[in-house]
């Protein structure tokens, strides 16, 4: 799975990636050196929990994906089987293209995780 994340990191606009459990624990990470992996995963776990609550409260089914965009980049979270794939975006990222290119990686991770 590490290999998959490292390949994903070579996609233009990707600044790092990690796989985390729904409760915010990092499973596999490929982040830049010095990144606070546990802190990022915990923040994402909190965000996913809120997202799940939001979707349930509004009756729009299970939360499938999330995006956070900031002035200097952002992140995209996609489901990967029982876990989530979080992709950190550089400011140069093309969001639409990145989502298209990231989907097969999420599918491959889901396959590995369900084995």
């Amino acid at each position, binding site marked *: 799975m590490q290999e998959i994340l490292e390949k994903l990191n070579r996609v233009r606009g990707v600044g790092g990636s990690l796989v985390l459990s729904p409760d915010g624990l990092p499973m596999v990470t490929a982040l830049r050196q010095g990144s606070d992996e546990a802190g990022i995963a915990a923040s*994402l776990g*909190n965000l996913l929990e809120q997202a799940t609550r939001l979707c349930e409260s*509004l009756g729009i089914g299970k939360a499938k994906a999330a995006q*956070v*965009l900031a002035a200097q980049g952002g992140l995209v979270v996609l489901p990967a089987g029982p876990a989530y794939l979080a992709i950190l975006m550089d400011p140069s990222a093309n969001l639409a293209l990145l989502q298209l290119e990231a989907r097969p990686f999420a599918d491959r991770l889901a396959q590995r995780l369900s084995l």
Partner: protein
Amino acid sequence: MESEFERLRKKVENYPSASAYNRLAELARLNQDDAEAERICQRCAKEFPRNGQAYVILAEIALAAGRKDDGLKHLHNAVERDTRSYAGHRLLADAYAADGNTGKALHHLRQILVFKPNDPTAVQKMEALSRAAGGAAAAPAMASSMRRSTPPPLGTATLTPGALATIPAKAAASPSTRTAAFTALCAEPGVRGAVVADNQGRVVVTHGLDGKADLLAALAAEITGAATATAKQLGQEQLASWLIEGERGQVLAFKRDQVLTLAVLADTGVRAALLELRARQALIDLGGT
């Protein structure tokens, strides 16, 4: 005419404004100098990108010259930049009606009713279009249902008590002006409703959420907090937006300043980029910076 033109030209040079440019371009057209009018509009579009009227004038010139594709392109630019461009929507409706594209023509007439409820011209045209489409018997009913289904008139998107205190004082426009772009956002296809919330999760203005406004406002504020914390973890300040996609819908939220979050509940597959454009306009109108 010439002296008025020169006076306006000097004014535009010294104190450029969108309205002065528009007037100058119209005078150039009256002088039958369409090339000059086009130059003026193009310059205006560069200096005032949100001025839809410049694109309407460009469209009129293109349509008069038989350049229909260019005309339509300019008209789409006009309504994209200014969702309340009456002339833009009307000309688009006319163009689509002439092409027999009743659906698109009705769409633009409905957009007019969003910011100009019960506009007689738009209503008449809608009735005529539906009659021409073969629904003669249903025409009056359709027009009246359009009037009903149109989001509430300007200013009737619910501005909650105390909301005015949340909005910065510089937003001194009337409530109707403040909520028009918000109402237009809610009229976009696929949008189920929207709410503007403050940092405490209190509703500032809402539309179409049928009792879920408070819930969405509260949860949107929570998620904005969580998203801001996550962005900070990644070394990124200034959260701009977030999106949560569910199986049967999605919530898109846009943050313009430190005070307001605009959350939109929409169908899956809705055009997020278009909604963002509308949402930013609504936030500006509501006093965001």
